[in-house]
């Protein structure tokens, strides 16, 4: 229950960090909030040759408003997101969701960049990045690039980062006016990873849904968007029949697995129930309720 020996460097800026990663190759690990990495080290599930500590890089944790978007630095702690008035104003669904991540001590340390890079298949933030159509900025010694959240999550704890790359920033486009939101999660114990969770936004024009987004986590190797369910809502008001059809479409779109925590059937059932609740909340809020 003690970490294996490793070398350790404190990166003073992103260039130093990615240079160290380039030197060490696949053997290095980035230490951000450490709330997933440290347990894996303590269990010796990982034996990195070197830890590149990015916690002291100035200016990597920030939340900044742009005209049409909000930029979030990768080192932004969950508690900063939870309590940011800017996030509360533009992405109340994110403020609400992030309060469900772990416990206060976890949220004080854990970072958005770490959570997205780690990509636990039942974590909240990867689902939120997918829901909100995040664009991720990635740095490496070879240069920088951006990737859309929908292309970032590849498999269980596997993302589009090659081991020498560092996620530096998350950009969220502001939501259109008259957008309501819902977030629903079922956990065995407060603060646990989700057995299943659903986040949704509905953008309305009068009584008509003009854009629907539904994202799920805990029901597959990666978070996913329920495209079928989204499209069958567009152009309609939200009523009992649409609710039922959306639930059915979500249940058909997913292939959850059975594990110690829940059976595939339970997860599929929950995904539907939570979709119905999240959509109802989004509809109510979209209509000003």
């Amino acid at each position, binding site marked *: *229950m*003690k*970490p*294996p*020996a*490793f*070398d*350790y460097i*404190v990166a003073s800026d992103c260039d130093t960090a990615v240079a160290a990663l380039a030197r060490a190759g696949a053997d290095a690990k980035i*230490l951000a909030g*450490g*709330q997933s990495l*440290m*347990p894996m*080290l*303590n*269990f010796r599930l990982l034996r990195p040759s070197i*830890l590149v*500590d990015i*916690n002291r890089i100035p200016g990597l944790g920030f939340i900044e408003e742009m005209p049409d978007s909000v930029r979030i630095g990768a080192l932004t702690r969950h*508690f900063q997101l939870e309590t940011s008035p800017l996030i509360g104003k533009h992405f109340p669904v994110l403020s609400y969701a992030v309060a469900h991540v*772990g*416990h*206060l*001590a*976890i949220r*004080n*340390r854990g970072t958005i960049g770490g959570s997205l890079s780690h990509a636990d298949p039942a974590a909240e933030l990867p689902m939120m990045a997918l829901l909100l159509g995040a664009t991720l900025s990635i740095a490496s010694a070879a240069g920088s690039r951006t990737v859309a959240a929908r292309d970032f999550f590849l498999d269980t704890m596997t993302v589009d980062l090659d081991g020498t790359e560092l996620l530096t920033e998350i950009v969220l486009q502001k939501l259109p006016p008259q957008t309501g939101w819902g977030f629903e999660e079922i956990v065995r*114990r*407060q*603060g646990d990873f989700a057995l299943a969770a659903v986040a949704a936004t509905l953008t309305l024009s009068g009584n008509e849904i003009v854009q629907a987004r539904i994202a799920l986590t805990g029901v597959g190797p990666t978070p996913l968007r329920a495209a079928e369910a989204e499209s069958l809502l567009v152009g309609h008001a939200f009523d009992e029949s649409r609710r039922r059809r959306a639930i059915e479409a979500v249940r058909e779109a997913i292939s959850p697995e059975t594990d110690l925590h829940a059976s595939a059937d339970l997860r599929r059932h929950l995904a539907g129930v939570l979709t119905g609740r999240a959509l109802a909340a989004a509809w109510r809020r979209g209509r000003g309720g």
Partner: protein
Amino acid sequence: MKKTCEIAVTVNGTVYEAAVEPRLLLADFLRHTLGLTGTHVGCEHGVCGACTVLVDGDSARSCLMLAVQADGRNVETVESLGSIAQMNALQKSFHAHHALQCGFCTPGMLMTATDLLRKYPLATDDDIRKGLSGNLCRCTGYEHIVKAIRAVVKAGENP
């Protein structure tokens, strides 16, 4: 491989300098290197909350931080809250409400509660329970812990 790193950590107001292996956990640094055994170590993977301390004022699992990460930081452990002769309001409330049996989880409960009281209004017992959900008590003493924290909230004696 670099064997040790020089660090200087302020713990409960005192600066401690030490040469530590990078892999040394903050919890073990506090207990073994400094002899501050008030911080308890339960699960060593961030689940039980017994090792919770404050780092620059924010609660953190000291089993999920390296001692080297605390270099230049201000760490507060349960020893900073008070002494048997002079307990702080939260400790007195734990005492008055029988909020501990074996006491193993108590340091983590106290440090978590300290941070919760500073950051959240804790308007309902549900809020207190949610806030404590990352700290396990195997004596099942949660009811009295919630009452102890409720009393501190009511008295407006937030630390």
